[in-house]
């Protein structure tokens, strides 16, 4: 078990290294000269452009730029945002809690809707409950985030005046306001994932319910509630956990559209704005941080499997 854990963690480093080379290479493919963008309306002055390139090492060969950056990263220095001159590590630490809060809330909403709905529709397969939950799930999957977001703003902020239309208040500053600013975006995000979770839970439950051990459990005369929750659900949850961690990882990578609409200053907004402003150090830092989160989460997913299914522990 411990050797397995160490081996898994050992795989993370080369993954990140390869990824960092990829980010650097892809950036070069991105059209648009960062010096031109940074110069803004001063871009007509060749002196200004030369000065920016020199200051940001943009006049060096790519491999030198990469090694320079990598050297700094290994010392914990992700560099400065070219646009606002804030340290990238500070930006990441500032935005991570925002995205984490939003992702957690969205995930809880998705779980609360998706898993019970999936169980219900599997147990009452081809009955009205199944039809209704399927219809709701389909709505959740197929509604575009930006449309649902704008509609919610119009209803709850403009019409009813219950919730602030956009912006963000940190949890530590004012918990009530914080929830008020994040509940709409969390619902928009959670709604989409709930549909996916519901469909997967339903499918896994249907498979589990047709297994021999379920028939045996029923034959033993166990109450249906126990059969469903203890025997079927536990086995059905494995694919759901996989999916859940992937979806949670995606949420942590930042919900680009939703964050833009609700002006939530999280990872998604950070990276999109950085790409449009060609703020390379921010792009590199955020992608690397996201990758780290992803590989950590997949590790967590594996650990969760073992908790749910003891047979996997031997492997």
């Amino acid at each position, binding site marked *: 078990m411990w050797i397995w854990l160490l081996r898994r963690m050992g795989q993370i480093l080369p993954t990140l290294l390869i990824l960092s080379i990829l980010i650097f290479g892809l950036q070069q493919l991105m059209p*648009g000269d960062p010096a031109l963008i940074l110069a803004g309306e001063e871009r007509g002055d060749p002196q*200004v452009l030369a000065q920016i390139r020199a200051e940001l090492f943009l006049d060096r060969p790519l491999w030198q730029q990469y090694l320079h950056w990598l050297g700094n990263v290994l010392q914990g220095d992700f560099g400065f945002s070219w646009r606002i001159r804030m340290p990238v590590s500070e930006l990441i630490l500032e935005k991570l809690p925002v995205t984490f809060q939003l992702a957690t809330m969205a995930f809880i909403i998705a779980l609360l809707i998706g898993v019970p709905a999936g169980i219900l529709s599997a147990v009452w397969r081809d009955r009205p409950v199944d039809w209704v939950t399927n219809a709701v799930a389909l709505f959740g999957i197929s509604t575009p985030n930006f449309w649902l977001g704008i509609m919610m703003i119009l209803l709850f902020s*403009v019409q009813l005046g219950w919730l602030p239309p956009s912006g963000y208040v940190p949890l530590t500053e004012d918990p009530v306001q914080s929830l008020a600013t994040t509940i709409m975006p969390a619902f928009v995000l959670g709604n989409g994932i709930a549909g996916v979770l519901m469909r997967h839970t339903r499918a896994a439950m249907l498979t589990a319910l047709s297994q021999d051990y379920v028939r045996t459990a029923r034959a033993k005369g166990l109450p249906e509630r126990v059969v469903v929750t203890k025997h079927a659900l536990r086995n059905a949850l494995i694919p759901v956990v996989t999916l859940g961690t992937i979806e949670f990882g995606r949420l942590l990578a930042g919900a680009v559209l939703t964050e833009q609409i609700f*002006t939530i200053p999280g990872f998604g907004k950070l990276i999109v704005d950085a790409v449009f402003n060609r703020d390379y150090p921010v792009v590199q830092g955020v992608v690397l941080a996201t990758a780290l989160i992803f590989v950590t989460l997949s590790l967590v997913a594996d650990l969760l499997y073992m908790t749910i299914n003891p047979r996997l522990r031997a492997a």
Partner: protein
Amino acid sequence: MIRKALVAALLAAGTIGAAQAQNLRIGLREDPDILDPTLSRTYVGRIVYAALCDKLFDINEKLEIVPQLATGYRWEDPKTLTITLRDGVRFHDGEVMDAEAVRYSLNRHLTMQGSFRRSEISGIEAVEVVDPRTVRIRLKNPSGSLLAALTDRAGMILSPKAAEAAGRNFGTRPVCAGPFRFVERVAQERIVVERFPEYWDAGRIHIQRVTYLPIPDNTVRLANLQSGAIEFGERMEPDDVKTVRGNRNLRVVAVEELGYQGITININNGPRAETPMGRDARVRAAFELAIDRDALNQVVYEGMYTPTRQPVPPANPYHIRDFRPEPRDVNRARALLREAGVTTPLTVEMTVPNNPDLRQVGEVIQAMVREAGFDLKLRAMEFASSLQAAARGDFETFLVGWSGRTDPDGNIYTFTRTGGGQNDGRYSNPEVDKLLDAARSETDFEKRRDLYAQAIRLALGQDRARIYLWHRKNIMVHSARLSGYRPVPDGLIRIQDMRLQ
């Protein structure tokens, strides 16, 4: 669809309960870059500086230069400018604003590594302290645009003590002499400033606190105004105006801007200039004659903008009144094409920044010029990429705008002069160059205006170097509870005299 729903929702909209009376919340269209007057570049940053950093001079509604931290100026000779300073001005850190601070700030703008002010005031040879209330600026050459430069970031005076202590990090905590002092900034989220009690003109400041909130999505910025979550929204869209006019809690103010939107033509920048459009002014004239600027403005911008044929807007005293757009004339356009000996349909490519309204502009122009014999191909490109393509010469025509400057030099020189940094089409006419150079160093208003008029007639009327289309308007929407907003064409939000009920 979304917008229609919004309009419908608005009709029944009420407001969220009154916000704190003293806190003014302003929704910005973008997130500003670094808040260091020497290093910053974005237009939106200037809106925040209007509260934080006073300048030597300011401009008023008529674009006249008025004193701010200065009390007056005098040209000792065409190369020597003496500026007298206001007494009793303090920086936010309590230090006194004096001639030494002015010298320090101008030198910082001129010499700091990465300064974006250098090119604006590069004509300055030396700044001398005459006495604590007087500075003398010596120029390398006479300059007609120096004073205008000092009404913007180059004229902002920083606390030397704070600037020395912070170095390149000054922008994370700027210390200036404006009506408000910096409180905090959370990137992409908010910038907060509070009233500075020792401000030299404190009697005109009635707002306690200003929070700037970057809300890039237009629909969401409008929803924030409708719900009362912000009191001021800047640079709103023309099609929001109808919605806002129907809401008694909101007011709309539209001010002519300093800049323009136009079409740059590749005349001499690399192989892609080798087209009839690039080689022959008659073909360019035909293209221009095929465009109906009024219709374009009606279709895309609800008729809110001002059609134009020149880079200087009507709000500016240097605007040439009798150089008006010619009416659309398809027959003359066709005749010009025949005269130029081109076979129609003539294929022309236009690079268009990839945003919805400019793409629509491109489509309308495409339909208009087709009737004259042009087959216009649109090439939509993300903005950063389009700038690079234009600089490289990888374009035939380019639909591009400019935010504009108070002084006409800033709207003309670098775009039109041979070798000008933003002359992407590489237009060149030695006669025009001579006129522009002369205008640059002329300090007499009438003479200067005549020089610009001659240059513009040559470059645009005769050579058709560029096609100017319209001057935008800064559309500002604010809460009916807010009074005292004074619209100035630069689009900045000056908090002086503003009150919230």
